């Protein structure tokens, strides 16, 4: 069995394994294919929001209403937004 299928299909490690490798098992918990896929999908949604959608929403969390006027992320990614075909202006 390879490492990946170990991660996916082996039940919890035994007590001895656990005590030796607490740190390692934390790494392993993140090193499973479903977690990787979930993470990549989150990256997809967040990045597309930044480059293709944001009109100040993200910074409005801290800046409040003024973020909608500054539109810092929109302005920063502006040229790429046009070049990638997203609606912008």
């Amino acid at each position, binding site marked *: 069995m390879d490492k990946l299928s170990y991660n996916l299909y082996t039940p919890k490690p035994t007590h001895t394994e656990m005590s030796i490798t607490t740190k390692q098992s934390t790494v392993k918990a993140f090193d499973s294919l479903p977690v990787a896929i979930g993470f990549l999908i989150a990256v997809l949604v967040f990045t597309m929001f930044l480059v293709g959608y944001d009109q100040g929403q993200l910074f409005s969390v801290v800046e409040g209403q003024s973020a909608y006027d500054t539109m810092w992320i929109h302005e920063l990614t502006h*040229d790429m937004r046009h*070049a990638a075909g997203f609606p912008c202006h």
Partner: protein
Amino acid sequence: MKALTLVGITLSSGVIAGIILAFLNLGIVEPTIDKAIALEVQKQVSAGENVNMSELIDYRYWQKAGAFAGGAIYGAGLAALFGVIFVFARNKLPGKNNKQKAMFLAGIMWFVLFLMVALKYPANPPAVGDPDTIYYRETLYIGYIMISGLAALGMSVIWIKTRINSKKIIIPLMYAAIMVTAYVIMPPNPDKIEISMDLIQTFRVLTAITIGVFWGILGIMFGSLWDKFLSKEQTLAAKLY
């Protein structure tokens, strides 16, 4: 550590391809954006608005630098989607090695997620677009990408599950039928175009090319890195079926 390796090669190939895209755009697409912005400024000046030219020039430098950040973010995001699809589809993709398989998938994704969408909602340079309709246009654009993407995904599943010979004709026709229907049903971009159509067409052709090159680079990078770091991991995708 294979799943972490997958995330690593996915995001790094995306960021690198995105930065290369920004470099290409700087030489190929930016001149057209600058022309469009010049037209905008002309319009503002003739409408009696005060435009601080030196401020504008500095601002444009900042935005051109920002396009590199934009490219890295854009590349990482599309690569993330690419990586997820590749993991599921690798065994079914044509090609002798992972580089060829990745190139094939990248070509399909450029076609489905960019070109098909651009036929209905083509890219526009600055000077086109009414800020008041931005959310409406974003909704249309994202909706159309979802239609094209999900249709292609559905067709791929049918392709894998069916054994009939004529699927090579029937399945692309089914995708085409969905896209023609969507093309007819979806409302048009509401904004009027007030600048020269030449400039806009140039912009559209150039962006289709640079985005196509981006996908090609992403495919080559991802496939090479997969061969280097994950080639022994034949079971990575198989475990999911």
